[in-house]
């Protein structure tokens, strides 16, 4: 039943649309998380540099 439903072109269209939207969302989340992680590392390094002086 599911295979028959997926073979419908309207459902394929909808599936592709959802995949694009969620793909972009996941990419955005990944970029944001990577940026915050990098900034956290930079804070630690900057604090370490200041402490070592």
């Amino acid at each position: 039943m599911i295979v028959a439903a997926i073979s419908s072109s309207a459902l394929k269209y909808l599936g592709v649309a959802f995949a694009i939207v969620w793909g972009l969302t996941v990419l955005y989340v990944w970029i944001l998380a990577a940026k915050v992680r990098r900034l956290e590392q930079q804070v630690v390094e900057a604090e370490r540099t200041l402490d070592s002086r």
Partner: protein
Amino acid sequence: MTMTSDRLIRVLCPVAGVLLAVAMVLIFFWVPTDADQGISQRIFYLHVPVAICSYLFLGVGAVYAVRYLRGRDPLDDMRSYVGVHAGVTWGTLVMLTGPIWAKKSWGVWWRWDDQQLNTFLIIFLFYCAYFMLRFSLDAGPRRAALSAAYAIFGIAMVPLSIVAVHLSQSLLHPQLFDNGSSAMEGSMWLTFLVSLAGVLSLAIVLYLVELRGKLLAQRIDRLVRRSRGEELLGPA
């Protein structure tokens, strides 16, 4: 960032993941197909929650803009900026999912005679220009005040967009909520609410994470200036 927002991020992350996964199962395998629009109506369960998030965060941006103008706290300016940024980010998804739905329902990507579409487009472009204003000015109280005034002015257009579909004479835009009673059946409502809860949870997490990133960037800036022996001028 406070411990509360850190805890909120940790709690809402899995909640958003589970709710969105459940919403996808409900959308594709459980909810009945709309008799009028067919399968393409199912994009409604993503399009409308995303639009609500967009409006909500533009509202958050305006609320913090008002707070900034009253208290002049730079943190409120940052919260307002992140709110507007989140609103525009979700607005981009609205601009993506809307035409996808329109193409299947109406056979065209866009209709220039639909008030709802055009009002949202105006709001979206207005808030895109917010960033041009903000980044054309030097960081400081003047930039924060002008950005706040712009964010407050823009929010006045949001109610226009919400009522536009009801005022529309063409009745082209899909209307799934009637006045007084729902045009959707119970299972459709449940799917919509699960999807809304999932998207909202994700949106709150992204807002908090982005705010955290902005505050970390400010902290790095302060640390770098301290290491250079510069005078602290306060957050940008």
